[in-house]
């Protein structure tokens, strides 16, 4: 059997998707015009799938901080924190984040993926148990494979199901660590953290919450789902990323655990990779400072969420159940979804095509993400383009006001 033979089925599936007219997983952005617009194949395109929730990728302060840092520190650290040392900004960013979350300790990672990979694989050791939500991100599943703990999966966003599975482990001596996400990246729903906290306390388990898609999005000051649900003090570990609302790249782990710092010489995805370039660290510090100074940026984001969600719902699309900056449009089948995705791109709207097994329950999605910097006109264009493509492909009924007609019929 040849080295690449086992990818035969994957190649065939990818080929079928590409037959829609373009490769959804190989889009080339020719020019980035702003945090909400790009030029793709010569077309002016609205970006509605970038996770750039606060639109800070071109924030003047963040740009200036990054440029100054480039001149001061150079282009990269050329090594890991343990080998090449920490720059003062790495330490300062960790302090900023610990302050922001009101916790003692923070470790910064080079990507959000590595933050989950490192935190989860290192915290849970041999004989310990990881209880992970069924819809967890790939970084969480990969962390489970990298570590040596026993892994049990519970039903998505279902505290009663977690309770049942923890009860089965009651007599097992190992530590139990429950892993959930704030906002889930595919369907945009968020974890019922109050209920999860009650279950983890009942069983003496630890709780880790990944706030990747909820930092700078939920909670009065932008700390995420834990702030929204008022459970800051009951969450034992927080992970997150700088590649969404912070507009850059990188990840973090935060905790009040007194022995936290030993992780710096135990956590392999932290130890054996080059640290973040100082210019990135500087831009993230500036973006975080902006969020802390101006949390009302999130008000604009949520107004935009309402515009897109209500607009698509009125067109008759089937959307993710909880509204938030990830707006998932359900499409029946990968091929139809790929055709709709390509139709949108041809009409100057970029969204994400999300297909199983990256999506829950075998569903195909046009995954939109909302940005605080989107104008109402841009979102109306997105809604019209989706409506047009949806009608052409029979995803929504052909007549106008389909949403109202359907709502009345139900």
């Amino acid at each position, binding site marked *: 059997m040849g080295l690449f033979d086992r990818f035969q089925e994957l190649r065939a599936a990818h080929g079928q998707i590409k037959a829609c007219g373009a490769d959804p997983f190989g889009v080339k952005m020719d020019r980035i015009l702003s945090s909400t617009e790009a030029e793709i194949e010569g077309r002016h395109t609205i970006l509605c799938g970038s996770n750039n929730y606060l639109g800070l990728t071109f924030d003047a302060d963040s740009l200036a901080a990054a440029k100054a840092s480039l001149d001061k520190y150079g282009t990269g650290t050329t090594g890991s924190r343990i080998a090449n040392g920490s720059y003062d900004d790495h330490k300062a960013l960790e302090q900023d984040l610990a302050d922001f979350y009101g916790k003692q300790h923070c470790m910064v990672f080079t990507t959000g993926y590595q933050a989950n990979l490192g935190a989860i694989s290192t915290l849970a050791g041999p004989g310990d148990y990881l209880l992970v939500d069924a819809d967890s991100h790939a970084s969480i599943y990969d962390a489970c494979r990298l570590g040596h703990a*026993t*892994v049990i999966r519970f039903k998505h966003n279902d505290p009663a199901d977690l309770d049942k599975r923890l009860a*089965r482990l009651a007599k097992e001596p190992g530590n139990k660590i429950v892993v959930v996400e704030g906002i889930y990246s595919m369907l945009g729903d968020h974890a019922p953290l109050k209920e999860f906290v009650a279950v983890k306390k009942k069983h003496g388990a630890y709780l880790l919450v990944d706030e990747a898609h909820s930092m700078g999005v939920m909670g009065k000051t932008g700390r995420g789902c834990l702030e929204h649900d008022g459970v800051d003090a009951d969450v034992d570990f927080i992970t997150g990323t700088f590649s969404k609302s912070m507009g850059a790249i990188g990840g973090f782990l935060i905790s009040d655990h007194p022995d936290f710092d030993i992780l710096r010489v135990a956590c392999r995805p932290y130890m054996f990779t080059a640290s973040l370039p100082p210019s990135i660290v500087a831009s993230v510090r500036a973006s975080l400072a902006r969020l802390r100074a101006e949390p009302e940026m999130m008000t604009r984001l949520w107004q935009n969420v309402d515009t897109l969600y209500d607009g698509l719902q009125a067109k008759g699309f089937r959307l993710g159940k909880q509204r938030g900056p990830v707006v998932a449009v359900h499409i029946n089948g990968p091929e139809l979804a790929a055709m709709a995705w390509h139709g949108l791109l041809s009409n100057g709207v970029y969204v994400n095509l999300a297909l199983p097994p990256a999506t829950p329950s075998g569903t195909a999605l046009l995954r939109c993400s909302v940005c605080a910097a989107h104008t109402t006109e841009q979102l109306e264009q997105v809604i019209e383009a989706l409506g047009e493509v949806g009608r052409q492909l029979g995803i929504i009924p052909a007549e106008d006001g389909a949403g109202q007609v359907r709502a009345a019929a139900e």
Partner: protein
Amino acid sequence: MGMDAPTEDSVLAEIINALLPFKKSDEPITAETEIARDLKLDSLAVMDLLMVLEDKFDVSIPLNMVAEITTVGQLAKAVRDQKAGA
């Protein structure tokens, strides 16, 4: 503590029953049927099946075991082993 330890056949029968919706041909599902190759279950579907079996047999089946399970018979053995060890 294995109060009413399920027999080899009863576990296998329950699993085959749970797999019926995935049947791809007239060939009966047996202990030798391969879950991924013959029934086309992807990794997500296998993990979902484990959850169903955990509840059916009131047992914990760690995801760590998935890599070692190819056939229906191996899955039945994994369930029995976990039940016996519970």
